């Protein structure tokens, strides 16, 4: 390494090529998409947008509708909670075969379970929900299972990592006494990693509340389903209340988790 920093504008600098590639990608994207930005940003369309957002300013605040909204919000919360709980259980069940718990552990199922976990994780909740609608029908159940499937992939992977990286002291102490692997896991490894697993699960729950609000758009229940229903009928007052409820829910969850984390890290 020379003492003077190399200039980044050189053909053999990786920064230069990343920059060229990025600019090419951006130009190609705009060119191939044919966004008709002129039409989107035309006065007529801006006026339409203004009218649309103007209509959103008069929410429907009738008690009957608000109680329906509250029920949908609770349904969203319930979906995220049940989905996360199921994912924690199945994630833990899959994390055990997906981890190599000690040096020399044959871990025969490690590759296969990791493949399953990756596939579960790679498919977004929304696609899972759309797929599950076919076999479970419209409603919150499909949404809950969709959350559970995707989150199982995410949590299973994280759980397996923390099981592999867990401090081995307690497990070794049991293992040299001749205790079987199942009981070593239950009495040594699991208690060691439990706080970390809980914090992962809570973090995913926070994510899932946001995801659950959206899932309904494809028919998976909760606030999203109500939103797509009323928006489809151009009932702007109802739409406006639902959007407000969604934003409130997200901000509430963010604030709560912020304070919870501050409390925990103190």
């Amino acid at each position: 390494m020379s003492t003077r920093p190399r200039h980044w504008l050189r053909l053999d600098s990786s920064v230069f090529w990343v920059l060229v590639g990025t600019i090419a990608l951006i130009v190609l994207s705009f060119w191939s998409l044919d966004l008709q930005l002129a039409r989107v940003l035309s006065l007529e369309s801006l006026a339409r947008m203004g009218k649309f957002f103007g209509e959103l300013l008069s929410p429907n605040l009738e008690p009957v509708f608000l109680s329906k909204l509250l029920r949908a919000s609770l349904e969203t919360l319930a979906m995220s909670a049940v989905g996360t709980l199921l994912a924690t259980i199945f994630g833990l069940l899959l994390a055990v075969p997906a981890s190599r718990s000690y040096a020399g552990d044959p871990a025969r199922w490690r590759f296969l379970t990791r493949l399953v976990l990756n596939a579960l994780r790679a498919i977004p909740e929304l696609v899972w929900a759309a797929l599950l609608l076919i076999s479970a029908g419209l409603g919150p159940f499909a949404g809950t299972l969709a959350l559970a499937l995707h989150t199982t992939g995410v949590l299973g992977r994280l759980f397996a990592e923390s099981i592999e990286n867990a401090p081995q002291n307690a497990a070794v102490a049991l293992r040299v006494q001749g205790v079987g692997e199942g009981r070593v896991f239950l009495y040594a490894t699991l208690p060691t990693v439990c706080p970390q697993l809980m914090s992962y699960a809570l973090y995913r729950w926070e994510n899932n509340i946001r995801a659950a609000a959206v899932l309904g758009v494809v028919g998976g229940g909760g606030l999203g389903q109500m939103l797509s229903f009323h928006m489809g009928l151009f009932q702007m007052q109802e739409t406006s209340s639902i959007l407000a409820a969604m934003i409130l829910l997200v901000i509430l969850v963010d604030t709560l988790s912020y304070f919870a984390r501050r409390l925990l890290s103190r």
Partner: protein
Amino acid sequence: MRLIPMARFKDPSLRDPAWSRRVFWFVVACVILWPALVSTEFRPWVFFEAQNLKVTTHFLAEFFPPALNPEFLELVAREAWRTVAIATAGTFLALLFAIPLTLLSTTVLSVSSLSGRMRALPFVVRQLIRWLLILLRSVPELIWALVFVRVVGLGPAAGVLAIALTYAGMLGKVYGEILESGEREPATALLRNGAGRIQTFFFSVLPGNATELTSYTIYRWECAIRASTVLGFVGAGGLGQQMDNSMRMFNGSEVATMLIVFILLVGLADLLSTWMRRALQ
């Protein structure tokens, strides 16, 4: 395992001291969980109702073999590129929105706060922009897309605008945090010596944080690709829209192909983003 005689449970030294507490919390958990299960209409047996079972097995049986005829593959390739293009264009627009909002809202470039507290007007302006950023990112991109499909019509423009707005909120917030957590002394020194705010930004704040800012932007681009695959489900173009069509027609083999492309695309974006971030280090 050998059977444990019941007498051992009677022995007080072997009794679980936390037993009653465990039972109590278990019951509490069940009481909380029950209404949640009712509310989510948790009925796993619907999967095994004859009609649903027939539809599902028929649909799943079609997954193999995946659709591989050339016309369809060409269509999927075109839609996959559109997905990437929507994500890229959206992230780029988000960047254009986020930069001025960050410059206006960051406290690093505040002149009045050099001597004691920030003055009232700049404080209010910064706070308002922060609230705007919170509002932008509190609405999920899918909801923005749903709104924009109504306003600008079906097609990629709605997807691009949706990603642009949500990600402007996220980028603006995180850029602000990065700038404020970096070293402030060089910027303060420049400002105290009479440098303008733009000068201070280009000669001290930006060079000091450039790596972190780019790395976060690339990470967001990766997230945008994940998001834009899904935006199609509400009609905003790309792979999602095609997948929605195939699902409505219960065409299992087409869905299988697209799921594979989906996984490959997300994996590729992941690899590319990791590689780019490493190249910039």
